[in-house]
């Protein structure tokens, strides 16, 4: 922790110096208070806590941070907008909620000068063009680039010890899993086995996945569903772009849920209560061989205070499905060139927006730009625990930065490759970002949760979800939703 901390301090000083050389220390926002709202915890909110004092010192403004548990964040923000309470000035929120925030005009458009100041071209395509904008207007600043990826103990998987035994049992070489069935096999193979971790012999779980209700675990499920349900060439994954029919209960999705349930047999029995904040603590503590999570695990794995597996972690693109369900053709398709990788841009990332009903708009925009500044996010991305993952080319190309942070060169390249391949993948799946997305996901989460504990089976659960989704769509207006969805995924009308 000490080394991390001192890098932080150094970074903060550097940043302070860099920024203050650019901005006048003129107290131009003297006496103004900017209220920032985001989720609780050190992740995402932590950087605001740490660096707000610098901004305050320069501009004379004051930053107040209001945090909520993730499960309540959406309703608090939307409430503030719709009840006219205007409680928050700066919002750091999941890009998924764009439909509800940007669509109805609750956010302040980002001025072109600010975009230039923030070097918009440096931002990876998806984040800069699609996720922070609605239609043609940019309403938010990219902050955290999100996508799900695969983590695995490469010392065990790629190492010499178990290859032969595995191959004898399963019929193919033991290596980074490319498909979900390989992932499952590896989990089964290692589950309960006594292996060596950081010099100690201990039994290990096959896989660790977040499965807690009302948290962020349903994205882990969606990562699986992508592999089985995303049709290459067709951007419409959650719904059919013809008529907004929910795809959530098609055979691809159902199979994904069945496997998500099955993985419980090869994982920590308590994962049913773990959210990602738990699994990304336990995996670096050496408790499992496999893990699916956002990019945070990478930086946590090299933090000596939190990880005992530094250097032993392999990074990969999400496994794909051996076959996928083509819902337009109504059949399973086995791709010619290997498993159907469909990296899931889970969450879309946290982005920073300014409320249109704020009464300190200028100060708010300034602070938002401060937090989203290229140098700032670069620093945050390499620091474990901040929750910030790369969203800019510069972050992904400067390997040295990562090596300095503590990665060994090989791992750094592996990590960055995995991320780049994920967010630039032609078959990448965008998360759902239309109006009511929080509601759609809540419905999904509740039913998936029930299936996970065996209350109902996978098909029934997803049928329920489909019905609920239709209800939500009807309530918002099917035509409207269809329009939004088509726009959101960039459907060209084929």
């Amino acid at each position: 922790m000490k080394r991390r901390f001192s890098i932080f301090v150094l970074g903060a000083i550097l940043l302070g110096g860099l920024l203050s050389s650019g901005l006048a220390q003129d107290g131009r926002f003297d006496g103004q208070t900017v209220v920032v709202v985001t989720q609780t915890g050190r992740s995402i909110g932590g950087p605001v806590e740490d660096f707000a004092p610098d901004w305050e010192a320069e501009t004379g403004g004051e930053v107040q941070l209001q945090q909520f548990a993730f499960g309540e964040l959406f309703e608090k923000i939307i409430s503030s907008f719709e009840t006219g309470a205007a409680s928050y000035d700066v919002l750091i929120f999941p890009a998924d909620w764009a439909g509800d925030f940007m669509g109805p005009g609750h956010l302040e458009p980002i001025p072109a000068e600010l975009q230039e100041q923030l070097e918009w071209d440096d931002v990876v395509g998806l984040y800069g063009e699609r996720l922070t904008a609605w239609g043609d207007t940019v309403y938010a600043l990219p902050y955290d680039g999100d996508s799900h990826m695969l983590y695995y103990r490469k010392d065990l998987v790629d190492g010499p010890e178990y290859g032969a035994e595995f191959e004898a049992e399963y019929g193919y070489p033991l290596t980074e899993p490319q498909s979900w069935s390989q992932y499952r096999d590896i989990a089964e193979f290692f589950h309960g086995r006594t292996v060596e971790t950081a010099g100690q012999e201990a039994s290990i779980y096959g896989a660790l996945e977040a499965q807690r209700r009302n948290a962020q675990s349903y994205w882990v499920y969606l990562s699986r569903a992508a592999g089985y349900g995303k049709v290459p060439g067709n951007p419409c994954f959650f719904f059919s772009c013809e008529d907004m029919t929910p795809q959530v209960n098609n055979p691809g999705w159902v199979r994904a849920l069945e496997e998500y349930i099955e993985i419980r047999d090869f994982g920590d029995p308590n994962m049913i209560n773990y959210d990602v904040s738990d699994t990304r603590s336990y995996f670096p503590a050496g408790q499992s061989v496999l893990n699916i999570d956002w990019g945070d695990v990478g930086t946590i794995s090299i933090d000596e205070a939190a990880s005992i597996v530094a250097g032993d972690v392999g990074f990969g693109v999400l496994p794909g499905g051996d076959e996928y369900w083509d819902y337009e053709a109504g059949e399973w398709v086995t791709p010619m060139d290997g498993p159907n990788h469909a990296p899931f841009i889970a969450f879309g990332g946290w982005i920073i927006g300014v409320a249109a009903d704020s009464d300190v708009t200028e100060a708010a925009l300034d602070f938002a730009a401060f937090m989203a500044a290229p140098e700032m996010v670069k620093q945050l991305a390499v620091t474990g625990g901040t929750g910030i993952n790369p969203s800019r080319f510069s972050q992904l190309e400067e390997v040295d930065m990562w090596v300095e942070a503590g990665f060994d060169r090989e791992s750094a390249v592996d990590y960055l490759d995995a991320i780049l391949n994920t967010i630039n993948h032609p078959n990448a799946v965008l998360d759902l970002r239309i109006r009511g997305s929080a509601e759609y996901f809540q419905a999904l989460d509740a039913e998936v949760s029930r299936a996970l504990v065996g209350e109902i089976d996978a098909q029934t659960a997803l049928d329920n979800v489909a019905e609920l989704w239709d209800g939500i769509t009807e309530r918002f207006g099917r035509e409207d939703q269809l329009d939004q969805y088509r726009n959101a995924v960039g459907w060209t009308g084929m």
Partner: protein
Amino acid sequence: MHGRKMWRLALVYLFVIFWSFIVLFPFFWLITTSFKTPIAVARGPLYLPFIDFAPTGEHWEYLFTSQRDTVLRHFRNSLIVALGSTLLAVVLGAMAGYGLSRFRYHWRLTGWRNDGIAFWIISNRFLPPAAFVVPFLILYTTAGLIDTHIGLIIAYTMFNVPFAVWIMRDFFNGLPIDLEESARVDGATRWQAFTRIVLPLSTPGIVAVSIFSFIFSWNEFLYALMLTNYDAITLPVLIAGQNTNRGIEWWFISALTLVAVMPVVLIGLFLERFITRGLMAGAVKG
């Protein structure tokens, strides 16, 4: 016989100590956990500071430096709302309780007399907040009361007033009427008799009501979460907010919880007899 009594006493002590342990141990755990390092928690459970683990004050430091503004804000709001609601409940409750004790009412519309009215008032205490979620949301939005102290105070009064009426009425019933009457003979008005004679004599009842109202308002979560965003947000919301993202940070939550719980625990410890008396009043009558 002596032997039996000894046995009995020993058994009694045994249970008392056992149950006291069950009650107190979680608090002890909160205190020690707030001084543990994350590794100490993960390796846990560890019980005794200095013996099992090396205590650290860093979480408290974090709480009082980086988190200070946040905690203070929530604390201050909790205080304002609790005090305000208590005041309102005591005033309205004492007045209504006095009325129900000294006058005869008869509501033609429902045919209720004092007992019926009192019963109706008290029954409001048991209505589920869930039934009021929607109308309050709409009402407060329209009236601009969202995220205001007064808004939350009014909402809490809905629960505190019935209880106050119940306790105060019971209390006033136990107060002989002679003093008021002789004051009125001397020319005092009803109101003067109430405020100058009756109220001072009712201090125990008022204290009991105040304590209960304060504790309820301090601990309430649902309405606070629903009706406040930032300006009036209270401590329970802050604590609950640590739920998922910091769910694993026991050390931080313990420290925060202690801060939130401390005022009420202190009130309870020092004013226990009022609480007990308040609980027993009215309920014993059945």
